[in-house]
Each structure stands twice: as C-alpha cells, then as structure tokens.
C-alpha cells in the first residue's frame, strides 16, 4: 500500500508496514498526538506535515466555549509535569470551523467532553455532521474539572451510560478514553465495550499536586492537576496490559511515550496505536524523531509489520514471533 501513497510517506521504508487497524478505522501508522497537547493541529502545521501522523486527536471540546482555569496552569515534577488547564476550548461550533483550516488527507479524531450525558451526546452529534472527522474519542478521564470527565470515568455504570448515549448519537467509530485513577480499569473497559465502544484509549493523566517550596502553598491555581510525562509510563503500560487480556477491543496506549522504544513497549503489551503528549510539549519535533526511528526499531526487533508486534509481551516477547508473523519478508 505504501508505494501507492504519494507525498507525505517518503519517510516510510517500503520494507516496514506501519499501518494498523483500530476496529473499523485503518491508520497509516500507529503514532498520534494525544488530545489536549496538540490544540486543533493549527500550530503544529507550521513545523510538521500533519499527514505524517496516524491521525490527529483534537483538543477535548465541549458544547459551549470554556475559559479554563485562571492563574498558574502548569508545574514541573520529577520526570514529567502537572497541568490543570480546565478544558479551555472554543466550543464545538468554533472547533468545527478551525478544523476546516487543516489540510485534506489528515485523519481527524474529535475528543468530546461534557458536564452531562446530554452534553456528550450533543457534541458527538455536532462532530458527526462534519465529513472531516473520522472517529470520536470520549474523554471520560479529565481530572481537572468538577463535573464530567473523571467523575463519569471512575464508575463502570456511568462509563456505560455515557458510552451508550454517544453511541446512539453517532455512527462514527467510537473510542473511550479511561483513567488510571480507578480501582478497576478492566470493569470500566468492559462497560465501554458492552455499551458499543470500538476502541479504548488507556490511560490519561493521574491526579496529582505540587507544592511551591518558597510559599508552601499549592503551585497550581486549581490546587490539583494531571500528572503526565515519563513518570506515567509504567502506570499506563499496566493499564494496557490488563485490559488487553480481558477485553477484545483494540487499544490506543498513552502515557509517557517519548521515543520509538516506548512505542514498541506499548505495542508489545497490547496497544495497536499510541498517543504522544507531554513529550511533544518538551520537543515539538518528537514525531519526526519517532518516525525516523520506528522502522529501524521494528526491523531491529525482527519485524516488518507494526501490527504483528501488538501483544507479544503476553506471549513471551520476541521469541513469540514466528517467521510467518513478519520475520524476513522484506529480505
């Protein structure tokens, strides 16, 4: 399929197939920006060809505009950062106008947010009317707002209710983004599956707090924020591993991914694709770097199809690979 793609894919050596399937949606490669760390893609257009990304996941969008939190919104922590932006967004109508400015050929996933089940459904319906949107991601795990988000995501029953409402409001492929801050992520994942999700996104930031050592007051205006970055990676790897064993849905892994080696770790524990977030805040060229490294990293592992790497940690790792699963086909 790669020889048939023209511009934007010269970076993919023909010998490695990076394409992956997420239920009904097929992506040219498994690397996506994480919602909330990439805006609506308009800034990154200046330094990145967005068509190189497997898809662009838009910033979480609510029905009406939200101003977000006032005061300090970000703080550094060892191996990562805390943020409490407060889901600042221009509302779904303006978001739809913004994505019209993105180039053709970019696969778009809209992240939807609501304070109520009705709002989730209304935002889903609005995005579904746009031919530019290829899938929806339900944000059930934002820790930085009083209502909605994590308040729904912690509880399997409310996960099921919101997912079913959105399912009824759209025919687009539906991803459900779950939180690490729940006692039983498998129960939440099963609930999303039963309610009609096509894929799961695991996980999200972990609620945290930072104290200012000059004042001994909380750094963030919102007091608590979401922890992201490399500190989160082992937590997200565990979520993906557990859910992969128990729920037959494709998984998008997210949490602390910074390079091609991290991508392979997430594929190995069961993710079919990954999202890169905080690493792109530290290095806006991180996607270029991952795309440059990924084919070689897969080849070095003896694989010429990214899809054949998915879940191998559950089968003993590399030794699970048989020649028919992708060794040596390119030679």
């Amino acid at each position, binding site marked *: 399929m790669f020889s048939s793609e023209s511009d934007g894919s010269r970076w993919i050596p023909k010998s490695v197939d990076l394409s992956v399937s997420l239920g009904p949606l097929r992506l040219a490669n498994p690397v996506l920006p994480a919602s909330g760390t990439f805006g609506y893609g308009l800034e990154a257009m200046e330094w990145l060809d967005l068509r190189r990304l497997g898809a662009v996941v838009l910033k979480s969008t609510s029905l009406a505009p939200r101003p977000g939190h006032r005061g300090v919104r970000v703080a*550094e922590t060892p191996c990562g950062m805390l943020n409490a932006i407060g889901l*600042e967004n221009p509302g779904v109508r303006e978001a739809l106008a913004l994505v019209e400015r993105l180039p053709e050929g970019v696969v778009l996933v809209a992240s939807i947010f609501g304070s109520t089940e009705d709002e989730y459904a209304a935002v889903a319906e609005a995005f579904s009317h746009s031919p530019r949107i290829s899938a929806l991601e339900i944000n059930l795990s934002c820790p930085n707002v009083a209502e909605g988000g994590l308040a729904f995501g912690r509880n399997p029953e409310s996960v099921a209710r919101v997912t079913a409402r959105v399912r009824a409001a759209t025919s687009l492929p539906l991803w459900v983004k779950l939180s690490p801050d729940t006692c039983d992520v498998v129960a939440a994942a099963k609930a999303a599956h039963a309610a009609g999700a096509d894929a799961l996104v695991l996980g999200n930031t972990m609620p945290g707090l930072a104290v200012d050592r000059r004042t001994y007051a909380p750094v963030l205006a919102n007091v608590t924020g979401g922890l992201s970055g490399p500190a989160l990676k082992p937590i997200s790897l565990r979520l993906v591993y557990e859910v992969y064993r128990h729920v037959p849905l494709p998984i998008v892994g997210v949490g602390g991914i910074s390079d091609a080696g991290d991508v392979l770790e997430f594929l190995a524990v069961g993710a079919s694709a990954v999202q890169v977030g905080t690493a792109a805040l530290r290095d806006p060229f991180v996607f270029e770097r991952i795309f440059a490294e990924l084919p070689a990293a897969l080849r070095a592992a003896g694989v010429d199809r990214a899809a054949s790497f998915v879940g191998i940690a559950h089968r003993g790792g590399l030794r699970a690979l048989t020649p028919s699963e992708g060794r040596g086909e390119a030679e």
Partner: protein
Amino acid sequence: MTSSIADLATPAPFADLPFFVKDVQALTSDLVLLDTVPAEFLPPDARPGQFFQILLEGGEVYLRRPFSLVARLGVVHRFAVRVVGRGTSAIARLRPGDRLRLLGPLGTGFPLAPPGARKLLLLAGGVGAAPLASVLAAVAQGKTAFRTSDVAIVLGIRRSEEAVLARLFRPWAEPLLAVERPSKDAEGKVVPPGAFPGTALDAAFARWQELWAEPVSPEEIAVFVSGPKPMLEAAFRRLPQAARVYGAFEAPMACGTGLCRGCVVETAVGNVRLCREGPVLSREVHFPHLAPREGDAS
C-alpha cells in the same frame, strides 16, 4: 485601526539546536548571564522580546525553561537567567563546555516600528530587564524605526546593589536609575549618585522633560515595559492614553509553542498564550480597559 494586530500575530519560524555554554557569570545574587554558542548551526534571528526554550538533557529537569535573549553578539546568544527554582538553579550551575539545546526563537516580540512613534521609552524592572536590552541592541543594529538617540531608558531596581543591571544596556546607552529602597552614603545621598528614589514609572514621570533632548508629545511615544506584573499593570494604567504601550509578560510555561495553553493570560480579546500571541502584549489591543481616559491626570 492600526497595524498592531498583524504586528502581534506573526510568530517567526523556530529551530531546535544544540549549543555549548561559553560563559556563566553572576550579575546579582539571583541573576546570572548565560553566554551560549551554537554547536553546529545558527537559529533564525530573534526579534527583540522573543524567547528561547532552554533544555538541559540528561538531568533532573524535564521541561524546557523560557528565556528572553539579552543580545546576540556574533554567534554568542546571551541570556539573563533569574534563579527561581529547580530548573533555573540547574542552568545557573552550568559550566563552560556544557551542552544544552535551544528551541527558538519563539513568541511575538516588540514591534520594530510602532505606528506613529518617533521616540521610544524603555521601562525596565529589575531582573526582568533582559528583553529591553535586546530592544536596545536591535536599535543600535539599525533593525528598528528608531535611532539610539531616540531611546530613553529607565531602569527600576529594588536595592542599590542591583545597579549592576545597568550593564545589560551599557554597551549601547546609559539608563536612568530608579531605586525603590536605596542605600545612602555617609552624607545621606542616594547610592549610586543621581539615582531617583522610587519606581521606574515614578522616575519617568518626574524626569519626563529630561528623557529626550526635545519636547515630545505622548502620541509620538512608544513605551516598552518589562518587569514584574504589577509594574506592567501600573504602566498600562498610568502612561498617557495616546502613548503606545507594550509589555513583556511572564508566566510558568510548558511547551512554548502554543500547544498546551499552560501560559494563558486573560485580556480584552480573550485568553492569549504568552508563548505565541505574547510574551509581548499591547495595551491598545489586550488591555485597553486599563488605559487612563482622556484628560485623566496620571
């Protein structure tokens, strides 16, 4: 109405490049001058007031830290680093030969030719003065609509020992010093001699007639302010409505490229990102509600 919105909305392209530390010198107890040189390539030329995100690789600091360029002298990129926490302490401990990465130039700097302005007043607040040094350097290099003789500089400091900050401007001009908590010599005179006791803004109003050789009316003046947030707000509230006033803002920042919205401030045109629409914001566009009404005395 004016060209200021277009002027404020066009960020320059940026690069992420390896640099070496050339020199680190302490200027005050909490400010170091960091001189860096590119390991391979020069980044695009920065406009005054733009900033770079400095990354220390392999250390305990994860995110980059934003710093305004003081000046580019040949290939040397000079930054003023105020030590406030873990990241800036690590930068202050760098030694010649250490490696770092510079992402930039980023953000929207000061306008090179503010509409209608014939004279330029730089109001610098203590260790926040660095962006204005880059303005003066650009003036001296002929990159702006001003000549060095058009520029008046008032440097406000808290304590007399911070007078050394005048060195940031001294390659090109001598600032008028204002000292909020001045030391006195044996005869009870303010140190250094001639320093104005008070804030930079107070000094500017008190010495208004002496700032330029000829009388200048407010609509012919642009004022660039850089310092603590209360100073920026005071300048926006007190400077004559007809003057074009621009301020360089600071906030904790994560990405520096407009992605995360971690550094927004509320303005008359909504939330703006200091890393993109800023760090330089204009009173006319962003804070018109702060300007004194026509006829108000300052």
